[in-house]
């Protein structure tokens, strides 16, 4: 099977109806734009900065109770009894539920293969839910949790995925610790390719497990009105939550309303409903009061997702002229105790990023007694880049070729991972060339080569490239643009704005078509009760999915408006345009009419334009491409690395808003520095299996001083006229793909030491540097 699985990754389990074709289906992307591409501030910037934006964690309803979940402290245990009497007797406690109360007939959503009830008596990871309470205050709720007595039979565990397949490893599930058959891919003849190579290198790499740790913890507020349930959820996709909650509770979709206006970050971990969502709904039902359930920071470290740890081995062959002849790759990973995509897309770059006729990959996903993985900003890709991009760097050194040149030599012409179909556009070559030029790659390398080697500080530069398997978007999406009788405009769409600026970009699309400022567009979004169906904001597909639908809706509204105007102005529609709230007729005697003065519009009340996302080109791949560059200084005695500057050159199609685009690039680089230099989940693998650093202090996210002030964003727009009607591809995930490897390559350039395990910090580097200096 050579079919990429990216589509499945994000809409897995969600039915995807085909939408009617876009009315403006023959639309080409714009040649010139008035609004799009400008560095415009966010339409909700004031609300976000002033604190008036209401996030689910801020919600407060009359008579609202607070829920809290008791979690298993062991990585593997059987719950033999739960004594809730202490909690039930406490003043202010309204409900206590557990595996032993009748309400727990709910199966967990989003996991067809391992069915489980809301509260398990067989706990397979630290943090698995055992019981829950609802109480008058969060403090009473947590005191109540302390008063619940659980009896556990503690069982042996395996927490390190590198040991999971050892014969004596405790079994996470009765079926054993391998999730499914090893996934294999092959093209060409790898052995032959290796024979043809002038240089063959082989190396092992490892990326540590990362936790999403969004600023706003996971959580929701659930409230019943008769048999109708409303949930305010911190989510990337209200329709995903609606589907999963309705299915799990056995309630019709029409009775479940999910609202998700603001959310404080998800990075892939908020694409689905949590057990906490169902728990809140059940507690609310039982108490007949709204229930708010916000996870504690510690819970978010254990139970709501991670980027799986990845162990990779790569053998690569190259000719002296830089032609890649073979890539032989294997990877293992773990989604924890769940079937959660422990090796998702972990080989995609090997399959698709560089021209190479002979490729073999195999991926093995295993179970361990640890929290479930969830998609994390470009699943699999940064890990795969950590291996592939370091290997490319090493190959370049081995054949004495510049690493930019080696990559240029192997820029793919077609998507080899998809049996050779073309990309709509590939800006990889331009990313490499223009990125290198802006970065002053050659000049800096020369400066460093002729620099002095006294003192303990060494400079180095590194680079790497990447592509993202998704980023093209696609149907379904429906958007509505309304023009009211006073000329004001409303955009209605189901998509969530996960902090990336979706509302702003979509308002700009409407503004572009309707001749107004983006600030004049009122946006209604992310509410299953009042807005249109949209898939979740994930996979870097929100702009390419939603913007064509929004554009089509704006065009539909404009066409209807022009029909009214043409009649009243007694001109042909073809001479009409919109500018600053006026319909302008060009011709012998140019005239203009305020939209608000159109009698036909007054009589109708408003115009409703509907837009649908049309299909993607059927025989082409739509992918974003990237090249990144950085400079570091390394203290060779202490292993301290200072990232001096970073540059991201990205082909993500049209730049919709220069500011939000740049935000993604800088944010992606920051996150990549986290993977490469500071972050790692640490489990007490040899003793208790428990996570030791489940807090924001011990789990080290990069701070402002860990990322360079000197960051540059170089957008490469290849003017993609085929991908969709706006010419935009995704930027969120590609922005973080090569980053960690780029740092590693720069550290190698500076010191001659290659660190193949994340994170690169003094704990790794200082030993390697001392060893390289030799027995000092």
């Amino acid at each position, binding site marked *: 099977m050579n079919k990429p699985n990216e589509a499945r990754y994000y809409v897995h389990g969600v039915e995807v109806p085909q939408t009617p074709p876009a009315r403006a289906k023959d639309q080409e992307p714009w040649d010139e734009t008035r609004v799009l591409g400008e560095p415009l501030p966010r339409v909700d910037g004031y609300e976000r900065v002033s604190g008036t934006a209401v996030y689910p964690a801020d919600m407060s309803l009359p008579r609202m109770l607070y829920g809290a979940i008791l979690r298993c*402290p062991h990585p593997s245990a059987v719950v033999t009894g739960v004594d809730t009497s202490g909690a039930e007797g406490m003043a202010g406690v309204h409900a206590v539920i557990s595996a032993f109360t009748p309400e727990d007939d709910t199966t967990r959503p989003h996991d067809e293969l391992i069915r489980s009830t809301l509260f398990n008596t067989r706990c397979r990871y630290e943090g698995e839910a055992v019981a829950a309470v609802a109480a008058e205050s*969060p*403090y009473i709720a*947590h*005191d109540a949790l*302390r008063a619940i007595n659980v009896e556990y039979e503690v069982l042996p565990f395996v927490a390190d995925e590198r040991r999971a397949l050892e014969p004596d490893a405790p079994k996470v599930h009765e079926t054993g610790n391998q999730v499914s058959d090893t996934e294999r891919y092959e093209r060409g003849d790898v052995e032959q390719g290796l024979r043809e190579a002038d240089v063959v290198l082989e190396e092992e790499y490892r990326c540590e497990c990362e936790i999403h740790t969004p600023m706003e913890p996971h959580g929701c507020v659930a409230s019943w009105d008769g048999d109708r349930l409303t949930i305010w959820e911190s989510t990337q996709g209200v329709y995903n939550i609606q589907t999963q909650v309705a299915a799990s509770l056995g309630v019709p979709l029409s009775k479940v309303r999910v609202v998700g206006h603001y959310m404080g970050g998800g990075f892939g971990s908020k694409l689905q409903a949590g057990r906490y969502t169902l728990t809140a709904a059940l507690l609310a039902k039982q108490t007949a009061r709204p229930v708010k359930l916000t996870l*504690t920071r510690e819970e978010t470290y254990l139970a709501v997702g991670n980027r799986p740890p990845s162990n990779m081995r790569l053998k690569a062959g190259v000719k002296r002229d830089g032609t890649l002849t073979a890539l032989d790759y294997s990877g293992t990973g773990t989604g924890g105790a769940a079937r959660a995509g422990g090796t998702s897309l972990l080989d995609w770059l090997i399959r698709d990023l560089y021209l190479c006729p002979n490729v073999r990959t195999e991926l093995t996903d295993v179970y361990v007694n640890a929290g479930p993985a969830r998609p994390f900003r470009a699943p699999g890709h940064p890990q795969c880049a950590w291996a592939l991009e370091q290997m490319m760097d090493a190959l370049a050194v081995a054949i004495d070729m510049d690493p930019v040149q080696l990559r240029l030599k192997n820029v793919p012409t077609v998507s080899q991972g998809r049996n050779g179909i073309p990309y709509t556009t590939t800006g990889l070559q331009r990313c490499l060339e223009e990125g290198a030029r802006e970065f002053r790659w050659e000049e800096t390398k020369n400066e460093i080569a002729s620099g002095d080697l006294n003192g*303990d500080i060494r400079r180095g530069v590194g680079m790497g490239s990447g592509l993202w398997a998704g980023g093209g978007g696609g149907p379904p999406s429906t958007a509505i643009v309304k023009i009211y009788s006073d000329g004001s405009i409303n955009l209605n769409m189901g998509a969530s704005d996960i902090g990336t600026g979706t509302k702003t970009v979509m308002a700009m699309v409407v503004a572009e078509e309707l001749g107004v400022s983006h600030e004049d567009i009122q946006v209604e979004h992310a509410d299953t009760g009042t807005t249109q169906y949209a898939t979740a904001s994930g996979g870097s597909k929100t702009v390419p999915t939603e913007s064509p639908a929004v554009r089509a809706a704006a065009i539909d509204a404009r066409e209807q408006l022009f029909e009214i105007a043409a009649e009243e102005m007694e001109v042909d529609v073809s001479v009409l345009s919109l500018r600053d709230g006026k319909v302008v007729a060009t011709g012998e005697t140019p005239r203009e009419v305020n939209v608000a003065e159109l009698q036909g519009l007054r009589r109708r009340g408003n115009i409703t334009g509907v837009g649908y996302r049309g299909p993607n080109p059927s025989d082409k791949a739509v992918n974003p491409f990237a090249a990144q560059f950085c400079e570091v200084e390394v*203290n*060779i*005695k*202490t*292993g*301290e690395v200072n990232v001096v500057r970073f540059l991201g050159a990205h082909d993500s199609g049209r730049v919709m808003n220069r500011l939000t685009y740049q935000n993604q690039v800088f944010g992606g680089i920051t996150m990549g520095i986290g993977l490469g*230099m*500071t972050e790692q989940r*640490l*489990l*007490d*693998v*040899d*003793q*208790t299996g*428990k996570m*030791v*650093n*489940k807090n924001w*202090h*011990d789990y*080290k996210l*990069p*701070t*402002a*001083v*860990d990322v360079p002030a000197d960051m540059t964003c170089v957008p490469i727009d290849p003017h993609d006229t085929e991908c969709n009607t706006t010419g935009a591809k995704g930027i969120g995930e590609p922005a973080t793909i090569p980053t960690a490897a780029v740092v590693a390559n720069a550290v190698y350039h500076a010191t001659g030491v290659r660190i193949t395990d994340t*994170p690169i*910090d*003094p*704990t*790794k580097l*200082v*030993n390697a*540097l*001392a060893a390289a200096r030799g027995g*000092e």
Partner: protein
Amino acid sequence: MLPQFNYVRAQSLEEAQQQLSTDGARVCAGGSDLLGCLRDDVFDCSKVVSISSLNQLRGIARTRDGGIRIGSLTPIAEVAASATVQETHAGLSQAASEVASPQLRNQGTIGGNICQKPRCWYYRGEFHCLRKGGTTCYALAGENQYHCILGGYRCYIVHPSDTAPALLALNATVHIAAPSGSRTVPLDEFHVHPRDDPQRETVLQGNEIVTEITLPAPPPGLRSSYRKVRARGSWDFALAGVALALAFNGDQVVSGRIVLSGAAPVPWRSREAENAVIGRRIDAATAREAAAAAMEDATALKRNAYKIPLFKGLVEQQLLAIAGA
């Protein structure tokens, strides 16, 4: 979530001491460490006694003999920014400015900083470890990348404070108010080694309060410095740190102290390194010798072997820097 506790804000030192004589009462200065411990259930606490109203415990002043007196409630940020401190005891200012983050330096006090609880994740986490009255130190066979390489004995924490090593290098004295009167303890003797008691960090009794810290007048030719290496640039404790306070006569070191942080369960004075530099001029060779001497007795645990070359590199670099070599 914080558990239940009573809270009093004492209006006088006497009241504070009286409130503290109840079992399970704890002093709260800036609260930046104490509240975290309570939230994480590290120890029981029935009453939090805030001393934040005791303004007489705030401030930095030059003493008549040319030393410095620092009230225990003085924010760490103030110690870092103090011109008085920078003038004669620069190493302390540098150490204070390396603590945590700007917010924590504003909230945290110097007294709280030297009294803070260890940051070992087993101690802070849901592990009934030796320091909490259990029978094992989980760090010994567990995730010990940040634990000690010197002075470990049944418990393998590192002392978390950045200011304490600088204060120790600068020969500070801790002034303590006790119900029976006040007493002074040289910083050398303030922290408790696990060999003596693995369940306490300082010599303070339950109702004793640190009132001030004094530094003696700098000896002629004193130079001091503090540097720490950490896994991330801010909001992080030392992987390795070194406080130097060396008195020079010309380019000769005549006396002084070298204290390591991130190395041992208490701020760790390295007499071996001191001996290697005192009476000598610091050049590349002396610096390397002293650095090696500092690590002579070091033994690594499974995951912290990097600390040994790290300390060597750090001590060497800092000695050369302070000598201006």
